[in-house]
């Protein structure tokens, strides 16, 4: 598991690599939240292109960042979702929040 974060203008992009499960979620969350605090971005992009596996802990991670960005008057977008994770994203109803970029 690894998170690569970069800032482009007011956009913070976090590229998550590996599995998002309960074991890894805490470290991923702390890593991203610390950067949000430092940089106060307008937009947080979660890049899922390198996510191998995800369970409902990943939904918790997305929802938690959604709420955080909302409090900060910013937006969240989840990008590059692999085919095998789409089923879970759909089940969780995340599409209705307008945070999924196809």
């Amino acid at each position, binding site marked *: 598991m690894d998170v690569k974060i970069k800032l482009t203008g007011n956009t913070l992009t976090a590229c998550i690599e590996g599995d998002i499960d*309960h074991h890894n979620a805490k470290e991923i969350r702390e890593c991203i939240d610390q950067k949000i605090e430092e940089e106060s971005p307008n937009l947080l992009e979660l890049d899922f292109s390198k996510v191998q596996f995800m369970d*409902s802990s990943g939904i918790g991670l997305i929802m938690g960042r959604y709420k955080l960005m909302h409090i900060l008057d910013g937006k969240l977008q989840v990008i590059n979702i692999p085919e095998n994770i789409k*089923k879970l994203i759909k089940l*969780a109803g995340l599409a209705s929040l307008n945070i999924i970029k196809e």
Partner: protein
Amino acid sequence: MKPINEMKLEFVSKSSNESFARATVSAFIAQLDPTIAELADIKTAISEAVTNCIVHAYKSSIGKIYITVQIFENGKSIIKIRDKGCGINNIKQAMEPLFTTGGDERAGLGFAVMQSFMDKVRVSSKPNKGTSITLEKNIIPRFIKNGQPS
């Protein structure tokens, strides 16, 4: 019907064992020649059940988690995940989508995922005794997937 193969697994409720459990169970079920999608469904459901043992059943302690897997000639697999933790008071409520006692970072979707990714989910639980989850998945045999008679 008798299983064509079965296995048992026992491990402590450390979160680093979540990936161990899903990898091991899916490696065993690979004998039934599942598709990548079928295997992904099983991995996700196992991860939900095992995480629940770690996060809820043994919330402030370390306990043991037991898994048994049976596979059958017709492609059926039966997976049992058991803990001796705190148990569930109200199973019906616990299984409702979005219900969680886990706080802010939990979505309350674990049971919903198990139910939609597997063919059958059974839950039995006793407060202070533990919980047992039985998951069933029917792996469609290759010759049917390919549309050829055997």
